[in-house]
């Protein structure tokens, strides 16, 4: 039987990171994945990641995937693709399917990094073609380059629903609404805001009543839910759509761990069973680890660190790294991981209402209910200061782990500080040169450059813009406010696309002076 020091099951962010880390300590590593391409969900992620530099913040998911793969290959990791693992047996025997038959392998250690699958929701008509998981829609768009439909309703306002919703608009679909049975937007406020300002309405406390159509989806009826999740009579609303995307969470793919006999437990009754793991991801079976989403749903950024933690632990276990090396490395990785577990979306805040930011400022309820900030509350936040001349307006109002804006500014105008969940502060005494690096660097697209007086009683607004075709200088259009409502005519005065901006173009348009604090998006053509 072919033997490896480490066998990793799943070539996603956790699995590739685990393999890379272990190989860097000298382990002979094999990775098995059922897909034709490695990377798991990473290659579908076309948005810029959050976090700090060490979490690969402001790099797009697919570029992180490429980097990881290159690193794994250069370290001699063997990656078997189209090779689903069909069984995990005693003594860490791994059985994988290859094109024409099955083969048995033995891992001295095994890391299960099988990720998660999308949850589904049943309603009348849910089996009609056109109802699909948001992740499936994302695969269609970003991997297979086909749009899932023309008019789409998104059910779920967590980060998956918000990010895929935005990508649907980028792909040219019309997103008719984002709805959620919960009373508050579940994902990052900045993700919601970038969708809302394009004109997409949010319906919170709403769910799908039925999908309509006979042989495919032709429409959807949604309704408002009361406190006991029942539809309130008379609250129904209809939309003509051909696609309904479901983004109601993920379930860890724990089957292999369960089959291997690892202890499973529920964090709370009914929450779903997870493998019982040590801090390094080791299960109740010595040398068998669970890493990434399979051990509990988080973001890809955490999965990559968890993978490395299990990778170095496996290296220590087999004697490839001495205790001191392992401890130093684990400490560094655990510090990086704990930074991602802070802030408003920290695991301990899950399901809770947090009234104030760490700075003691109100967390915008308007943002949680509508997907965007109210005009009169923007100025409360430390990234928003009204001074004359060109300067950034940082509409970053929730404590999320992210700080690329701080490093982006060549003039040190923006400070987040050592605690990366702190809200960015704009220092109005520093000299902003209007370079726009911060606008492009903000993974949440929440930084705008404004100049309150460019002459002729006009002001300018520069927005991050990730849609094609790019507008051109001189194009006449309409400025939209944070809700996506047209507010005034706006002429494009500049379009900047630089390699350093990594596909986030900077669109500058002019508006009447009294509108520059409201205008946050631009659409071609006159307002209807």
């Amino acid at each position, binding site marked *: 039987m072919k033997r490896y020091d480490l066998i990793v099951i799943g070539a996603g962010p956790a699995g590739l990171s685990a393999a890379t880390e272990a190989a860097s300590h000298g382990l002979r590593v094999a990775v098995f994945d059922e897909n034709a391409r490695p990377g798991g969900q990473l290659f579908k992620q076309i948005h810029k990641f959050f976090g700090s530099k060490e979490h690969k913040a402001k790099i797009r998911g697919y570029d992180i995937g490429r980097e990881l793969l290159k690193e794994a290959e250069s370290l001699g990791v063997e990656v078997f693709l189209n090779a689903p693992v069909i*069984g995990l047996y005693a003594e860490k025997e791994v*059985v994988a*399917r290859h094109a024409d038959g099955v083969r048995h392998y033995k891992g001295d250690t095994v890391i299960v990094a099988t990720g998660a699958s999308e*949850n589904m929701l*049943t309603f*009348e008509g849910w089996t009609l073609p056109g109802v699909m998981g948001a992740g499936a829609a994302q695969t269609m768009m970003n991997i297979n380059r086909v749009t899932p439909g023309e008019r789409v309703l998104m059910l779920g306002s967590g980060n998956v629903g918000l990010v895929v919703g935005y990508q649907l608009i980028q792909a040219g679909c019309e997103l008719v609404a984002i709805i959620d049975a919960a009373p508050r937007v579940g994902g990052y406020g900045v993700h919601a805001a970038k969708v809302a300002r394009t004109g997409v309405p949010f319906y919170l406390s709403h769910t799908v009543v039925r999908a309509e159509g006979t042989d495919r989806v032709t429409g959807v009826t949604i309704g408002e839910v009361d406190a006991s999740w029942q539809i309130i009579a008379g609250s129904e609303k209809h939309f003509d759509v051909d696609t309904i995307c479901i983004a109601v969470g993920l379930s860890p793919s724990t089957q292999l761990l369960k*089959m291997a006999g690892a202890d499973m437990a529920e964090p709370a009754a009914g929450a779903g069973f997870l493998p019982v793991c040590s801090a390094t991801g080791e299960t109740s079976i010595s040398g068998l680890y669970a890493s990434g989403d399979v051990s509990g749903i988080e973001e890809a950024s955490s999965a990559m660190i968890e993978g490395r933690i299990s990778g170095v632990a496996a290296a220590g276990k087999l004697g490839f790294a001495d205790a001191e090396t392992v401890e130093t490395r684990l400490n560094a990785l655990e510090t990086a991981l704990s930074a991602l577990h802070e802030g408003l979306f920290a695991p301990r805040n899950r399901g809770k209402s947090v009234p104030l930011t760490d700075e003691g400022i109100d967390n915008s309820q308007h943002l949680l209910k509508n997907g965007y900030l109210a005009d009169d509350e923007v100025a409360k936040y430390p990234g928003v200061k009204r001074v004359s001349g060109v300067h950034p307006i940082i509409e970053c109002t929730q404590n999320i782990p992210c700080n690329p804006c701080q490093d982006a500014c060549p003039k040190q105008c923006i400070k987040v500080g050592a605690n990366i969940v702190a809200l960015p502060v704009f220092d109005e005494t520093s000299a902003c040169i209007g370079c726009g690096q911060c606008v492009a660097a903000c993974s949440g697209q929440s930084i705008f450059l404004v100049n309150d007086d460019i002459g002729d009683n006009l002001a300018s607004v520069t927005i991050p813009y990730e849609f094609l075709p790019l507008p051109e200088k001189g194009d006449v259009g309409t400025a939209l406010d944070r809700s996506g409502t047209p507010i005034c005519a706006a002429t494009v005065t500049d379009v900047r696309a630089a390699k350093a901006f990594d596909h986030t173009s900077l669109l500058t348009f002019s508006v009447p002076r009294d509108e520059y604090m409201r205008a946050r998006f631009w659409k071609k053509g006159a307002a209807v």
Partner: protein
Amino acid sequence: MSAVDRTRDIGEYVPAQDDDMIVCRCEEITKGEIRRAVHDGMYNVHEVRRLLRCGMGLCQGQTCARLVKSIVARELGVRSLEDATARAPMRPIEMSVFANDGGGE
């Protein structure tokens, strides 16, 4: 697998409006069939699966496992329920491929 308490009274099966809704798409099993199976004495997901084959089709329960579990739990009036047993082959596989066992070669 934990022992099943069959002495518990879960009441009579009461037909519901959405009983004809398909839950397991691969095997075309409806919500009503699953609910009735519980009232017929299948007090956990393993037994429901053996009786109805829900979760044993092409997707191996990727879509419906969680849905079936929640229906069974609600019918039994419990919050927590064990998942179905995980067995090889973990993914659908043609018999010709499965039989071509190269062992450790």
